[in-house]
């Protein structure tokens, strides 16, 4: 478990995050909200990808469908928006179950490709169904409850939901189920031999991941009040995978760090030049070459090595 020192750090970080909106101007608070929800999105992607060893290459489908689900319930029905915030992620999870059932028979690259084709199917539907989803325009001006409609309110909502989700994800990974999932990643054959139901474990990971991706999508609706079809497009999925890789896909918090880095880089580079994709691409190349375990993975390695040296001196 977390050490006492670690606990103090966590409380300090949380306190800072709670106080931030009181000090920082609107733009930075918005940016922090976006980082939080993209971080949740990337971390949910990393559950099957980094810890399950599944090629989850089209995670944006669940993110986008969660967002669209929430947005459509709010705009097209009389249900309470609070209920919509739950329905969105549940729809995403249901889609995760359906797509998981279809894809899970395949492995590695084939899994990823079938997921991409199914995801493109969903995207094509959303993109063309003008009367229901607004087509390529998306849906704008979604009204959320007053208490979270201000930028500070949206930030606190994102903070609370992301925090809760991270806690749940952490507990899932530390549970016997999470350990078994990582065992499957490292050696699926042996796991099957000792009686672990590989497919069912992987399927559950896909559903949990889809649920939290849907949650992140819902948070986007709260923070930005819009949804658009690009949220389901495959380029966003690869960006999420890159967030995982950049931050460290074998660490728990790595994807959050990766998301923060990408959002910050994009925001600040794009104030100087329209060619931020170029900068981003070059950064990715450097990371793939020199930091294959990501930034946090690199820090962890460094920490371990230093500890080993210290141990040897003793």
């Amino acid at each position, binding site marked *: 478990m977390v050490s006492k020192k670690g606990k103090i750090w966590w409380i300090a970080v949380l306190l800072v995050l709670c106080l931030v909106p009181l000090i920082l101007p609107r733009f930075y608070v918005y940016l922090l909200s976006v980082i939080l929800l993209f971080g949740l999105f990337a971390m949910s992607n990393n559950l099957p990808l980094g810890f399950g060893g599944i090629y989850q*290459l089209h995670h944006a489908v669940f993110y986008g469908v969660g967002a669209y689900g929430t947005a459509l319930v709010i705009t097209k029905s009389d249900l309470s928006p609070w209920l919509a915030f739950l329905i969105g992620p549940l729809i995403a999870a249901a889609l995760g179950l359906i797509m998981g059932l279809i894809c899970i028979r395949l492995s590695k*690259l*084939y899994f990823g490709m*079938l997921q991409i084709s199914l995801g493109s199917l969903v995207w*094509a539907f959303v993109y*063309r169904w003008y009367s229901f989803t607004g087509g390529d325009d998306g849906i704008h001006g979604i009204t959320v409850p007053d208490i979270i409609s201000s930028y500070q309110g949206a930030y606190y909502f994102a903070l609370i939901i992301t925090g809760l989700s991270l806690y749940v994800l952490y507990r899932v990974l530390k549970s016997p189920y999470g350990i078994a999932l990582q065992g499957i990643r490292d050696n699926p054959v042996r796991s099957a031999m000792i009686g672990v139901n590989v497919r069912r474990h992987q399927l559950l990971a896909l559903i949990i991941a889809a649920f939290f991706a849907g949650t992140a999508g819902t948070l986007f609706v709260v923070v930005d009040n819009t949804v658009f079809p690009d949220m389901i497009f495959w380029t966003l999925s690869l960006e999420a995978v890159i967030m995982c890789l950049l931050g460290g896909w074998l660490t728990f918090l790595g994807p959050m760090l990766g998301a923060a880095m990408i959002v910050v880089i994009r925001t600040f580079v794009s104030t100087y030049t329209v060619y931020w*994709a170029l900068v981003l*691409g070059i950064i990715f*190349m450097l990371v793939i070459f020199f930091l294959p375990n990501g930034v946090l993975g690199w820090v962890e390695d460094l920490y371990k090595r230093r500890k080993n040296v210290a141990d040897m001196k003793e």
Partner: protein
Amino acid sequence: MDAVGVLNQVFVGLSRTVILFIVSSGMSLILGVLRIPNVAHGSLYMIGAFIAYTLSKLFGGGDLGFWIALVGAPLGVAVISLAAERGIFQYLYEREHLMLILLTFAFSLVFGDLVKIVWGGEYKSVPVPYVFQGFVPLFGGLPFPLYNLFLLCCGPVIAVLLWLLVNKTKIGKIARAAAVDREMVGAVGINVSWVFAIVFVIGCFLAGLGGVLVAPTVSVTLGMDHTLIIEAFLIVIIGGLGNIWGALLGALIFGLTQSLGIMIWPQFGIIFPYLAVVVVLLFRPTGLLKSTW
């Protein structure tokens, strides 16, 4: 929905098939021999189309321009890909597929912005050469663009050339051997690294060729790589990784479901190819034809 209309759509679909086949056969070649799922393939296709625009404009926009572009643009793309392969890809062959997908995705981001820097964000159009302007009457008197007929002739020619290259030439034989057992090929004294480079460049050449051939029929623009790359990937997957005839079959399925789907259900025509892919993969998870993997 009459028979003539259906036939017309079939021909439209077949023209699309040719483009898809040319691009995805290149991708399949790279995937089969080098095992790189090249996301940047779509960007090279786009670059091919943009170079074609420049060359065609440079040489007066007429017939001469088109023919020069037809030769020059794929060569230009080949040079770019050679630089990328020798500069970066060759160091990463041993990495996981996931890393390679992400690396090539990074390339596609960079290429996309480079195109924006060089050519700007506006729509470009490449004129159809005079020889191929006009229409031929099809069965039932429906006019069919002459240029598309030219495309329909290109498809089989390229398929045969590619088959000859892979099966009848020495480099093709070495490449196929290297795909199965890289170390063994190296052990008999062949420089595998350069074999891989050549295969990669040939694959990218095909992407560029697809870009030139499509240029007169569409507006050349940024983002034309995004939809194509997914289509090419899916074609390669349903055809069987690394199988050229599989790429042809996949391209046929994709092109025809697309054009006929639009007839059946105009609003959601674009979902039919994806639906076909799902159906194929459900029953043949590793593709229709034998994969080289």
